[in-house]
């Protein structure tokens, strides 16, 4: 249940800084996800915590213990590797027993623990099978069992589901959430897949391509209230526009080229001054699309349907509002038959509330 703290950690590769002066605290006993695009340094961060890499400067703490220079094998941290890294010369049992065997635990105890954990992972039929005969999902569960049998203080998971198909991935995510709840161990889950991160995490950090942490929050907060345009664009889809903020007593607006003045809630942020050039993010599913004229919305604009992409549970529309401005709209397909049929080249109205707009400094 111990936390991890990184203080001013810097790591260079070939003279290039991958991570610079990074500060991060990962709370104990939580499911923490580290999300970022490829090359953002998230795997490097994980390798620093595991001890496979040494930081060029800064310190890493596990609870109150400084583990910056502690050898890998002395850290109470275990890793589930991206491609599992199971020992090909050992069978399922010996793979899982490896950590206990190394620590010289008596054979009957090992036997009992391994069997118990393999049963928990629903692998009791595969106990003496060689690794090569297992399916991807089974290998994944062996890798998990091999790590958690050592009762680590922290479990690191490096894109553990990347090699599995979608259905299996969704199933494994639920199993991971259950496992974390049962063990109460700190889980650090590294991924570039926002769906995985949003699903599993109690809270998550988003890394930008420069190895900086752009935001740490609960998944819902990250999605609904992104703090930077990078986060807004990286998590989910969004309509992002730049414009000038105009604050008046009764009515605040943001003036956007080709879109006009959009009404926004009066901002309560130091950088949101009258006349400031800022960004506005509007999620496509917050926009209501109709061919009819409706009342009760703060904002309204007209456009032409350019493309329609059917996703099953929702439909994505790309609406041409102006020659140089398009907007993306998601509509839930709530009913079996649509009330009004929207087709290509139809003129439509877009409506949204000011409360659904997020203002961003940069």
């Amino acid at each position, binding site marked *: 249940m111990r936390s991890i703290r990184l203080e001013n950690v810097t790591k260079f590769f070939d003279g290039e800084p991958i991570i610079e002066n990074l500060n991060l605290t990962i709370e104990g006993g939580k499911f923490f996800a580290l999300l970022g695009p490829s090359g953002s340094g998230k795997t490097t961060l994980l390798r620093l915590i595991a001890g496979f890499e040494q930081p060029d400067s800064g310190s890493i703490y596990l609870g109150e213990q400084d583990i910056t220079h502690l*050898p*890998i094998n002395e850290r109470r941290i*275990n890793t589930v590797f991206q491609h599992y890294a199971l020992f090909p010369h050992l069978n399922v049992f010996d793979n899982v027993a490896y950590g206990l065997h*190394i620590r010289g635990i008596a054979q009957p105890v090992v036997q009992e623990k391994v069997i118990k954990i393999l049963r928990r992972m629903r692998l009791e039929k595969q106990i003496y099978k060689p690794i090569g005969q297992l399916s991807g999902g089974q290998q994944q569960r062996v890798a998990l069992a091999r790590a958690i049998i050592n009762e680590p203080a922290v479990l690191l998971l490096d894109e553990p589901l990347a090699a599995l198909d979608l259905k299996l991935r969704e199933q494994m995510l639920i199993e991971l959430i259950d496992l974390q709840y049962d063990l109460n161990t700190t889980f650090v889950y590294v991924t570039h897949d926002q769906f995985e991160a949003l699903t599993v995490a109690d809270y998550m950090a988003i890394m930008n391509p420069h190895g900086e942490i752009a935001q740490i929050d609960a998944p819902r907060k990250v999605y609904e209230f992104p703090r930077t345009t990078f986060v807004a664009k990286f998590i989910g889809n969004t309509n992002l526009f730049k414009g000038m903020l105009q604050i008046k007593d009764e009515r605040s607006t943001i003036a956007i080229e080709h879109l006009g003045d959009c009404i926004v809630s009066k901002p309560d942020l130091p950088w949101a001054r009258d006349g400031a050039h800022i960004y506005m993010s509007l999620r496509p599913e917050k926009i209501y699309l109709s061919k009819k004229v409706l009342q009760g919305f703060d904002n309204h604009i007209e456009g032409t349907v350019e493309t329609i992409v059917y996703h099953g549970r929702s439909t994505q529309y790309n609406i041409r509002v102006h020659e140089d401005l398009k907007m993306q709209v998601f509509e839930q397909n709530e009913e079996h038959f649509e009330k009004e049929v929207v087709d290509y080249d139809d003129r439509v109205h877009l409506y949204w509330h000011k409360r659904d707009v997020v203002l961003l400094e940069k």
Partner: protein
Amino acid sequence: MKKPTLGAVVREESSLFVALPALVWQLLLFYLPIGFVIGMSISYVPYYTNIFNLLHFKIIGRSLMLALITSILCLACAYPVAYYLALQIKRYKNIWLFFLMLPFWTSFLVLAYAWFFVLDNYGLINMLLMKLHIIKQPLYLLNTPFAVYMVMLYCYVPFMILPIYTVLEKLDKRLLEASRDLGATKWQTWTNVTLPLSYPGIRTGFLLVFVPSFGELAIPVLMGGGRNFYVGNLISYYYLVAQDSMAGAIFTCLSGVVLLVATLFVNWWFARQRV
């Protein structure tokens, strides 16, 4: 249905056509003669009961020892080199490998002769030791088992390095990280992961060294002063000196059987290591 054209047939069977010259070559120049030799030796064994005497078994035993000790020496020297090259060196691996293999572009005999200048009474080793005042009298190194094993090791070591290097190079480095991650020290990682996973390379290297050094005849004669007979010498003696091709054939087969048994034993031993 269209009849297949000749071109299509040739393409279909092209792998056989490509392999044909080598197959014919092997059939005519290896399997046919060895068949004769085996046939001859089997039909003549009843008349050559005097072949099975103590001296001959001593020679086979001596060759086995030579092959075994050479293999073990090669393994001891080659493994660290291969390990270092495959796992520690990050850049220019091929250049390192090239320089390692460069001496072996020279003929075996020249390599062996070169050692005379190293091991001679007034050779490199003795001069150095005397200059450093470690010894007063030159050591008698030539024509000793020491000289034989030194040169055997020198000539055969690349056959051990290359297969081990290949296996270690292909080794998934994340397995080593996984082992450390699970609490193993570097040494435990080596004994539990690296070593078992390098067995295929060690086995190949062992056989590549063991088999030819069992039949080696030049190096023991040159460096050992020709005082001890080995299987290779025995066969060439019966064929070339005594002109007794029957005895030669019998020994060829006998050494073949010994090698077969040894190879099977090595394979069995390594197979048993994979629990």
